[in-house]
């Protein structure tokens, strides 16, 4: 694609280079003609990319248009852009060329703009080695890029967990419908009655929807209430569903069980020393929590504790049980 017009010894490379006069491109006369990204060319490239809003926004096509360099193909730009993005520009393109003032100026600009890498830059500047400066710039850009990507990942993760939770709810809703329609409460034997009792006594947001005995409006209001209590999720507010239920263990201090209990009453479950057949006692409390839980505990005490079979008691119990932590 590139036709060397005349061999020239413009640089001190071992390989004969050639300059295509009008565009100023430096090419090799290798069997495989390659484009040499000189400092000037790279400068123009960087300018174009910055104009277009950064390496992630710029595309080879737009860069080509902006640069307006004849003889430059998309192919060249694609690969150079990719390398630029990764910050892995080969050293040899720069080592043998003297640093232009413009390049130095732009690197200084970057340095001023990126305070966090100032230490790195400072070291590089002290070295006085041009290659190190460009390395530092590349590193900085790489760091920025990674940071940006990490934020993106975090955002996506939230959305995905949300979707996961929503889907889970559809499963649970369908399950309760079938359960209500099918078995009724009578067919549960002791060991398998765990789940519905689980569901009603649990404050798991998603399991709240395993709404076998209650009404949906009631649960919706509970849902909203528990959302409000999400006070210490560091990420965005619209992070619903699964995140809530998994953030139990976030606090790493010794208070963690107690903090958790503030949101969900699971903490009041206590060790499982009770009988299996009294399944509702799964989440009965034991008096081992600190004083501030006494209130909730007492409220729970009022709930009758025999094994749950009848819907009525359960619904009543659920109402009562749920009142305290949200009070």
């Amino acid at each position, binding site marked *: 694609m590139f036709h060397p017009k005349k061999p020239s010894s413009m640089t001190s490379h071992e390989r004969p280079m050639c300059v295509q006069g009008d565009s100023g491109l430096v090419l090799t006369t290798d069997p495989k003609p390659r484009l040499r990204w000189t400092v000037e060319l790279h400068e123009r490239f960087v300018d174009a990319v910055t104009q277009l809003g950064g390496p992630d926004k710029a595309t080879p096509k737009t860069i080509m248009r902006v640069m307006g360099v004849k003889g430059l193909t998309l192919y060249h730009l694609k690969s150079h852009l990719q390398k630029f993005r990764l910050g892995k520009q080969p050293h040899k393109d720069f080592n043998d060329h003297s640093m232009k003032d413009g390049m130095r100026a732009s690197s200084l600009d970057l340095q001023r703009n990126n305070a966090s890498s100032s230490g790195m830059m400072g070291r590089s500047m002290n070295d006085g080695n041009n290659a190190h400066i460009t390395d530092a710039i590349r590193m900085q850009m790489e760091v920025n890029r*990674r940071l940006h*990507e*990490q934020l*993106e*990942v*975090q955002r*996506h*993760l939230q*959305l*995905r*967990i*949300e*979707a*996961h939770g*929503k*889907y*889970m709810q*559809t*499963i*649970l809703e*369908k*399950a309760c419908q*079938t*359960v209500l329609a099918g078995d009724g409460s009578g067919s*549960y034997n002791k060991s*398998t009655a*765990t*789940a519905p009792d*689980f569901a009603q006594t649990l404050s*798991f947001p998603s*399991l709240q929807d*395993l709404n076998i005995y209650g009404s949906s409006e009631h649960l919706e209001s509970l849902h909203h209430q528990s959302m409000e209590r999400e006070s210490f999720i560091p990420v965005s507010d619209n992070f619903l569903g*699964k995140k809530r*239920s*998994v*953030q*139990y*263990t*976030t606090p*790493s201090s010794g208070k963690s*069980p107690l903090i958790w209990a503030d949101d969900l009453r*699971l*903490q009041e*479950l*206590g*060790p*499982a*020393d*009770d*009988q*299996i057949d009294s399944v509702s*006692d*799964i*989440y*009965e*409390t*034991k*008096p081992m929590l600190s004083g501030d839980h006494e209130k909730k505990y007492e409220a729970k*005490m009022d709930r009758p*504790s025999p094994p749950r079979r009848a819907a009525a008691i359960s619904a009543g119990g659920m109402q009562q049980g749920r009142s305290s932590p949200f009070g």
Partner: protein
Amino acid sequence: MAMVMDLGFPSFESFDYTTTTTTTTTTTTTTSSTDEGCNWSDWSPVVDWNEISGDQDFQNLIDSMIDENVVIHQSIRPIDDDDQIHEAEYNNSSPEYNMAMQDEAGSAEDSKGLRLIHLLMATAEAMAGRDECRGLARVILVRLKELVSPTYGTNMERLAAYFGDALQASLDAGAGGRLAPGAAEHHRADVLAAFQLLQDMSPYVKFGHFTANQAILEAVANDRRVHIVDYDIMEGIQWASLMQALVSRKDGPPAPHLRITAVSRSGTGRRSFGTVQETGRRLTAFAASIGQPFSFHQCRLDADETFRPTSLKLVRGEALVFNCMLHLPHFSHRAPDSIASFLSGAGTLNPRLITLVEEEMAPPSEGGFVGRFMDLLHHFSTVYDSLEAGFPMQSRARALVERVFLGPRIMESVGRIYRGRETEEGCSWGQWLGAVGFRPVSISFANHCQAKLLLGLYNDGYRVEELTTNKLVLGWKSRRLLSASIWTSQDCDL
């Protein structure tokens, strides 16, 4: 408070062990007597009780045990007479144990746990030995059963109960026969609750799903049609987040058409919380709710669970992805032949991507059945630990998860290694894929980052590492538990 009386502590009444020194000594004597008067040192040459006694960490307990007991036993002498054992039980008491027990008064739980491990190991050794030793194994198991219960007690006790049952079932099934599924059909609501809990308590489920989904997303970034063949779709929850991601992707053609083919067994859908058709309906409804073009198909396996690639409906121009999830909570341990047929069938169709999530086991050592058994024990004890670490007070909830998911899995795994021995491949499916010619696909920075962020939502004992360029491994503390790997069979770049 009245509550205390309600609950009581029935567990302590029903078992013959207490925290008192004398009783524990008796128990120890019992275990040591199962080798008819032989000293424990014959079995476990060097056990530094004093060193172990101060150790609170369950993990280290097993580790130290496994390390010290690598060199195993002398030959097991067969029992002639049951009476002999009982007599030995009450007479034999090695002085070193009495001393050790007194030192350990403070950590009786650890020593109890250790005894249980010894019991299990003894059983495994007996089962690995000659036929005459089966009787010995049964005796030990009887004793073990008296000590533990699947729902009460510490992690180790519950774990030992499940392992004991698993060993028992393996014994009963015999060397050749396949383990009867045996496990009680769990009530559907139980399964659902346990599933919900498992997801909340641990990142196992989400880790596998999200890692696979992210790899799929990256692989099909520029495609208009995507076809995923799912080996074990269960209730389809993996695809909810993928659909969400597809709908909201910015680059590439918007809203690609997603087609999912679920591989279904020809028998009745056992232990699933819904048939595959229901899953399809649910997925379709979900896709509609978020505006994702979607269609669902089924592909039946043969009666022997072999996958036939020809039974798959393919569309021109679609990006084909094979998804193989083998970890918790995917229930039944599928026959290896079936998995192999699925994966090799995938190879013939040249898919864009193969995503594989499986349990990460240590490579099989020379320990034979016993070595693999101990490794399994270690593996599941880690899982138990990880669940407990996040939810220390909710042993009921954990017991449910254990009953529904972990117990059956233990049962199947033990049965598998008992039957398998040389016949089953010792390597993981990932290694198998590599060996038959699939190319690994690197895990992207975004994927790795997502996994780390995900784990950050859970207890900080979890960690993720990039074991090879195409494999992310989830582990708890120092033990690797789950691996997600990505493969392709094509030569072109993704």
